[in-house]
């Protein structure tokens, strides 16, 4: 779980913040409300999650409670893998 959180955080910092770690966002912050990701960014994160964790994200799983924060993604991945 901690690994997933760190991997997703690293991915977002590298791909959307040009590696700049000075932008503070907590594990609970909404990516969209914080202005870090838009729906295209979420689509990119979906591809990253599917490729990194060998999962298939279904259409009815495309909801903010699964994808719109580090914590939400970590819980979602954990549920999917179990």
């Amino acid at each position, binding site marked *: 779980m901690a690994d997933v959180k760190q991997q997703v955080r690293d991915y977002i910092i590298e791909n959307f913040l040009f590696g700049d770690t000075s932008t503070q966002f907590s594990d609970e912050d909404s990516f969209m*409300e914080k202005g870090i990701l838009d729906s295209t960014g979420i689509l990119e994160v979906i591809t990253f999650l599917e490729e990194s964790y060998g999962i298939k994200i279904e259409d009815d799983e495309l909801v903010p409670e699964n994808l*719109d924060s580090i914590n939400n993604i970590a819980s979602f991945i954990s549920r999917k893998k179990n």
Partner: protein
Amino acid sequence: MPFSKNDIKIDPAKETDRIVQQLRQYARNYRKQGAVIGISGGIDSSVCLALSAKAFGSKKVFALTMPEADSNPESAVLARKLAKQFGVEYIVEDLTAPLAGFGTYRRRDEAMKTVFPEYDATYKSKIVLPTALDDKDTLSIYQLTIISPEGEEKTARIPLMEYLQIVAASNFKQRSRMSMLYYHADRLNYIVIGTGNKNEHEQGFFVKHGDGGADIKPIAHLFKTHVYQLAAYLNIPKEIQQRTPTTDTYSAECTQEEFFFRVPHEIGDVVWYGMEKSVAVNELAQALDISEEKVVHIQNDIQRKIKTTEYLKANPAHIE
């Protein structure tokens, strides 16, 4: 008094006068002598044409329709009727050849073929969003729908690179139209009228430097509900007032609701207006006869779109 969905209504006569004054003032400020407007046979551009004709006089407005291979032929028929009614000079500029020159159709089809290998030029296609009137708060992730010549329909989520390529290729359409509008504006010394309403402008339903790139946007502060009020007041042809708003960008019939807004404007506008006026969720739910949960999902969707489309609304930045 409890909140009513009619609270959103405006005084169309007063609003028309206000817009007309500001259109005139804008043209005077920049020493321009009239207005060019692209009309699609839809409600927004029709209202903008009527407002422009009132502001500048019908002889000082130049209207054009810019169809291309995927356009619905009904659009040009309605546009011509509108221009005739308001006594405005009207021409058709077919953009199929220049768009083919840009590779619009080839690039778009190439991406669509990656999603559905059987797709070819004989199919119709569109990209759509799931409804926001669902029981879940869903994200705006696009799906591609293709329809075979036999009418068989298939829908699938679009992977990132294909999605971006389809949108990028399709955006040639709006940007080519804006180029053509400015050609006529430059030769006539006119301004270009932008025809987006508040729903489109604030939620980012336009192409940057395409339909978003006009000189003045006379209805960008008005909800779609208000545009319909002005249409009735300005005597826009009934067929246009009753027509379902479409994107007229994809070959398959695609309403603005399924392409972008995810709810009928009659509901979305009232929810949005209610948010601006700090109306409680339960009052909005009651006025619209939908669940409080649905109201919240619609509010979330509107807020997310406003927030995540800031790039589209930003002017070119300068280094400070």
